[in-house]
Every structure is written in structure tokens, then in C-alpha cells.
């Protein structure tokens, strides 16, 4: 009997466990097609950049046949001229020139000049081409071409860490005056840490207070916290510019109270940025702490004290461990959201307070270098996920169990 029934039960169990997934399929598909796939497609640009390889099939073949490193021989130059002529005819030469210019500053106009000459059917020769475009006589030009010949590239990911392939084929640092991203990543994490700690310093006492107030008054306080939360982040940021500017409310107030003798420079400064971000992030830190605090019975603290614990010991040994998941969840939420701040640094931060999102936006919008933007996004996403995994694994925090 049982030998026949068992498989049937197992099948039914499997079907039962699949059913929730079947119900969620439309949502999962929507998530994949509207969220997952575009992100993957964009991130893939960080490592896949075929422009140079597509534009120069002959040159790359000739380079393979060429003997050594450095400046190649005549056949490669002829192949290069032929490739550019075809690219010029098909209208793709400028895309190639821009792509090469990313790797080698100043290459753009020289490549376009060679392409124009090739289009005019001037008989090309190595000597004439180097004369028209001196960069072609330098090893670094051909090093850039050789690197670009590979459709899969580490150039952009290395750039995101201020690194590059040197001419000797090793990985080295970029020149100091071009090194910007490591510092910006560091700054992003620093500001996120400061804002997280500031919100925690404000949110923990407030949550504790709300928990001990009469429900009616606690409700009013909660609404006061939530009201700004329901206002658009742009509006709140703009409001802070009104408050923080040199002839703004805060400076007027400080002068009137006699606390300062001259107007403070709060706008376009890190102080202003941290004040505004702390205000915007406060509810994100507060609400998880508050919800966990509510689930801790107040009688436990009284019980601890009646058993002889000092108030601080009772708080430290009984209360805090129980609300710790809420504290960690709130801090993690705020920290991760801070990593992606864009509009507040733009409007309130100074030039040296721009975060990594601002650089990503600049590469997407202004410089049209989506490969670099993808590489920076990848590093940001990977570090965020890494942080999340670390927090959940090693600190025993499970956000999925929080609800």
C-alpha cells in the first residue's frame, strides 16, 4: 500500500510547493524583463566593448601577423588605412575615434584626419600616415589598438579602481592627476557611515521615547516623522537649500540668537549635505527600530530590575540584544540608500562632496561613456551586495524574517 501511495504524496507535495511560484510567475517575469535584464544588459557593457574590434578587422589580422610589440610594419598601416576608409564610407569612423580616444587622449582628431585622407584616395604609406598623424608613430597608440582588439575588456573595470594596463603588460596605477574613483568610493562610504550613525543617534532615543509615550501622543509623533517621509526627496532637498543658504533661515536664526557672529557657509559644504541627508534618512532608520521595540514587553525590563540588575545592566543585557535586529536593519537600510544618493549632493554638496552616483550620472548623460558608467555601477552594486551578505551572514541579521 505505502509503496504505491508514497510517490503520489511526494508528487503532490512538489506540486504544492510549486504552486506559489506559479502564482508569482507573472511578477517574476515582470521583474526579470523590466528590472533584471536591463540591468544585466547595462552592466555587460562594463566588460564588452566591440567598437574597435568591429571597425578594424583587417588591422587586427595584420597585427597578428606582425612580429613584435611597439610600432608595427608597413602592412599594418595599409590595413589600418583600408579599415578607416571603409569605416568612413559607412559612417562609423567617429564612433571608433571616440572609443579609441577614451583609451588614448588626443587620438580622436588624428584618426579622423587619417580617415579623411584615406577617403580621398591618397596612396597611403607608413611614412605619410605618421607625418599626418604623429601619434601613429608612437608605441602607445598601437598598444591601445591591441588592447581594443579584444571585444572583452578589463579596461573600464580597472579604471573604476584607478588602475590600467601598463605598456609592459602589467597592472599599474593611473597617473595621480587622473586618479579619482577610489577617492570618490571612499568618500561615498564615509558619508554613508556618518549619516547612518547620525540617524541612529537621533532615531534610537526617539523610538524609545515613542514607545513609552501614551499611544495618542506617540501617534502624533509618528505622523510628524512620517509627514516629511511622504514628501518627495527633491522637495525636501530644495527646502534645505532655503534653510541652509547664506542668507537663509538657519543663519538668520543663529545670528539673532547671538550664537554666531558671522554667517556660516552651510550650502555647498559637507556639513550641509550631512544635515540634509540625515533628515531625509531618519524615518528609514527609525521605523525598523520602533517596530522591534514595540515587540519587546516592558515587563522584561522591570523583571530584570526586580531580580537585582542595575538599570543600565538591564538595558544592556536584556533590552538591547532584543532590539539589535531592528537597529541593524535600520542602519543597513539607511547605509545602502546613502550609497546611491544623487540629487542631494548635487543641490547641497560642494564640489568635493559629490558621490559615486554623480559620477555615474555624468558618464551616462554628459560624456556618453556608458561603458565607464557600467563599470562604476558594477563596483557599487557588488560592494552593496557584499555588504548585505556580510551583514546577514556574520551578524545573523535576516531581513526576510524582519516583517
Amino acid at each position, binding site marked *: 500500500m505505502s509503496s504505491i501511495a508514497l510517490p503520489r504524496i511526494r508528487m503532490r507535495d512538489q506540486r504544492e510547493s510549486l504552486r506559489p511560484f506559479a502564482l508569482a510567475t*507573472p511578477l517574476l517575469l515582470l521583474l526579470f524583463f523590466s528590472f533584471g535584464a536591463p540591468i544585466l544588459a547595462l552592466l555587460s557593457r562594463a566588460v564588452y566593448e566591440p567598437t574597435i574590434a568591429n571597425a578594424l578587422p583587417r588591422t587586427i589580422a595584420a597585427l597578428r601577423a606582425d612580429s613584435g610589440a611597439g610600432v608595427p610594419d608597413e602592412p599594418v598601416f595599409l590595413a589600418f588605412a583600408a579599415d578607416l576608409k571603409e569605416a568612413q564610407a559607412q*559612417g*562609423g569612423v*567617429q*564612433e571608433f*575615434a*571616440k572609443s579609441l*580616444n*577614451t583609451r588614448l*587622449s*588626443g*587620438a*580622436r*582628431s588624428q584618426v579622423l584626419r587619417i580617415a579623411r585622407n584615406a577617403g580621398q584616395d591618397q596612396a597611403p604609406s607608413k611614412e605619410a600616415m605618421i607625418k599626418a598623424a604623429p601619434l601613429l608613430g608612437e608605441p602607445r597608440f598601437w598598444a591601445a589598438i591591441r588592447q581594443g582588439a579584444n571585444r572583452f575588456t578589463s579596461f573600464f573595470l580597472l579604471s573604476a579602481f584607478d588602475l590600467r594596463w601598463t605598456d609592459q603588460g602589467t597592472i599599474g596605477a593611473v597617473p595621480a*592627476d*587622473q*586618479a*579619482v574613483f577610489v*577617492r*570618490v568610493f571612499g*568618500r561615498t562610504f564615509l558619508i554613508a557611515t556618518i549619516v547612518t550613525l547620525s540617524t541612529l543617534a537621533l532615531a534610537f532615543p526617539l523610538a524609545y521615547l515613542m514607545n513609552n509615550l501614551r499611544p495618542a501622543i506617540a501617534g502624533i509623533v509618528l505622523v510628524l516623522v512620517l509627514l516629511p517621509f511622504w514628501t518627495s526627496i527633491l522637495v525636501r532637498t530644495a527646502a534645505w537649500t532655503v534653510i541652509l*543658504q*547664506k*542668507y537663509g533661515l538657519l543663519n538668520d536664526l543663529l545670528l539673532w540668537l547671538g550664537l554666531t557672529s558671522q554667517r556660516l*557657509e552651510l*550650502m*555647498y559644504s559637507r556639513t550641509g549635505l550631512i544635515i540634509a541627508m540625515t533628515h531625509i534618512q531618519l524615518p528609514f532608520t527609525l521605523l525598523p527600530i520602533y517596530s522591534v521595540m514595540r515587540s519587546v514587553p516592558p515587563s522584561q525590563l522591570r523583571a530584570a530590575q526586580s531580580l537585582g540588575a542595575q538599570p543600565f545592566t538591564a538595558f544592556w543585557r536584556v533590552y538591547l540584544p532584543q532590539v539589535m535586529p531592528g537597529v541593524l536593519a535600520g542602519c543597513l537600510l539607511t547605509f545602502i540608500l546613502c550609497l546611491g544618493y544623487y540629487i542631494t549632493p*548635487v543641490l547641497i554638496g*560642494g*564640489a*568635493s562632496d*559629490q558621490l559615486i552616483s554623480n*559620477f555615474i550620472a*555624468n558618464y*551616462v*548623460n*554628459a*560624456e*556618453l*561613456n*556608458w561603458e565607464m558608467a557600467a563599470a562604476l555601477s558594477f563596483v557599487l552594486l557588488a560592494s552593496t551586495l557584499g555588504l548585505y551578505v556580510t551583514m546577514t551572514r556574520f551578524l545573523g541579521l535576516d531581513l526576510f524574517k524582519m516583517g
Partner: protein
Amino acid sequence: MNGLRRTTLLGLAGAALISQPQTAGAEELTVMATGGAWQAALHQAWFEPFAKKTGIKFNEQEYTGELGKIKAMVETGNVPIDLVTVETSTVLQGCDAGVLIHLDYSKIADRSKFLPGTALDCGVGIDVYGDVLAYDTTVLKEGPTSVLDIFDTKKFPGKRAMRKAAAQNLEWALMADGVPAADVYKVLGTPEGVDRAFKKLDTIKKDLVWWDAGAQPPQLLASKEVVMTTAWNGRIQSAIDHDNRPFAIAWNDQIVEFDMISIPKGAENLDLAYKYLAYAAEPEVSAHLGSYIPYGPVRADAASFVPKDVLPKLPTAPDHMKTYLVSDVEFWGDHGEDLIKRFNAWLAQ
């Protein structure tokens, strides 16, 4: 099960609604410009008269002047924009990235009639503007006379604002350091020249505030956040003329630039777009804009159509052209990416 089927049907109906092709009404031209006082002037000077003349409806949109949005449209093959105004350096970028089409000048106007550098492959000039220095006359009784005075923190102490960009600022830094206007780009093309420019900028770095959008300089002056700021001349003039602000402009050593208009790749109403470009390039029409915002025409033969009271406000007025520099687009196409990166690294220090 019934509920499920109903949901599916609703979903399909929704999808059908979304994918329904847009019904074409009257002829319509969608143009995207960078907003503010400038777009309002474009509307009055050109869009509205053209719409009246031809019966073509204008659909105006605004954007920040950065081509990322249009690149995304072109890559997804859905380009609901027919014309877009861009800065000169952006035209070059859009050309290189395959985002803007190469214009067919036989459908617009004789290319030789335009001022040098205003009829580019992927964009045709619409106006001439100046990057100048502006200040509040009630704050600075004895104001600066040259843009380069922004580097003089002894005579003019206090915060000053510049555009958060490498272009123009590096040129001015070199000029303030004694490089003649004619040699600026030659010097800036060398590593030593770049070092020299940044060294000069270093001298005022702690006094600088940075602006992004063209509407910010008048606000920075009005809120007295800064004592002087670089600006586009039209935005300042507009604040003087329409908002009665006590601002003034220092014209010497201005950098002359051009606004351009381009057609994005894949624009649906190509013929209409060309029709508009041909209209706006007519000498008399091209002089209209100056009456609404003090930017000059890009055609030499249009100068005689500019109203007499507008002329002295233009960047091209003889009084304003004593010393000036014309922005070199090709230079920025070549060195822009590296200089911008270095500028950002410099800002972050």
C-alpha cells in the same frame, strides 16, 4: 480559475491599449530645448511664428542639454524627438556617438553664409552667446572689467562662482596667467600647459562655488551667495531687463560660443525638421531671437536685421569684442575626456 482568467484578460486588454499605435493628427514637430529664459525666447522668436506660418503644431519639451537621454532613445529605436538644441561641444559628441544625423545643408541654406564654426556636420548654429563675468552693482561699487578679474581675490574678496566644467575655466586660467588668447589652445594641448592652468585655478579654489545650470548664476548673485560669477550673457541680461536686478556684465576676455540645433538619428518627421531649419536660417528670421534674449545671429548677412536697441547688448557688439576667445570645439573633442576627468580629480582634492 475564473478570477485568474479575468486577470489575464484584463492584462491583455491593458497591453493592447499600450501598444496601440499613436494616431497621427495634424503635422506635428517635437523639439527639445534647454528651457529657462532662453527656450521662452526661442518660442516667441521662432517656434510660434513658424507654427503660425505653416500650420505645423509645435510640441515643446525641456531637457538638461545632456545627450544621454537621446542616446537611450536612439539605441532603443524609439525617437519621439525631431529637433534638439545642443551646445557646440555636445554636437561633436553626439556626432561621434552616432546619436545625431549628418545634416544635408542643401535642404537648409548655403553653408558658406554662416559664421566660421557655426555650420557643423551634425548641427547648425542658431545663436552666438558669450561666457562672461556678472556681478551685483550694489555689492561691488567698482566692478570688474574683465572676466579674468575673477582671479583677483585682493581687489575683489569674497566667494565667486564658476561653471562646474573644465571648458572655459582652463582657458581663462591660462589667459589670467598671461597666455595670449591666440595661443591658449596650443598651450592647453601640452601637459605643462594643463598643469599651469590648474595651478592658476588653485589660487582661487577655496573661494569658488560651482554652478551647473544656466539659471543658477542670477540666483547666486541675487541671494548674495557670491560677489561675482561667470555666466551666459543672456541669462544675466534677462535678470536685468525683466526682474530689474542691479546686475552688470564684464565683457573683456569673454569666451564666444554658439548654440546649435540638431536632428537626432531616427527622428520621425525628418522633412518637417528640415523645413524648420531652412526657415530659421533665413537671414531676417535668424535675427529675431535678439529681441527676446540678447544673443546674436550666426549669419553675417543677418546683422543688418538686428534691431538698433538690441545690438549693444549682444556679445558681438564692437564694445564687447575688444578681447575675446572663440571656444575650440575640436580641441575639446580631442582632450575633453581626459581634462574633465582631471578636473573632477582636482575638484575632489
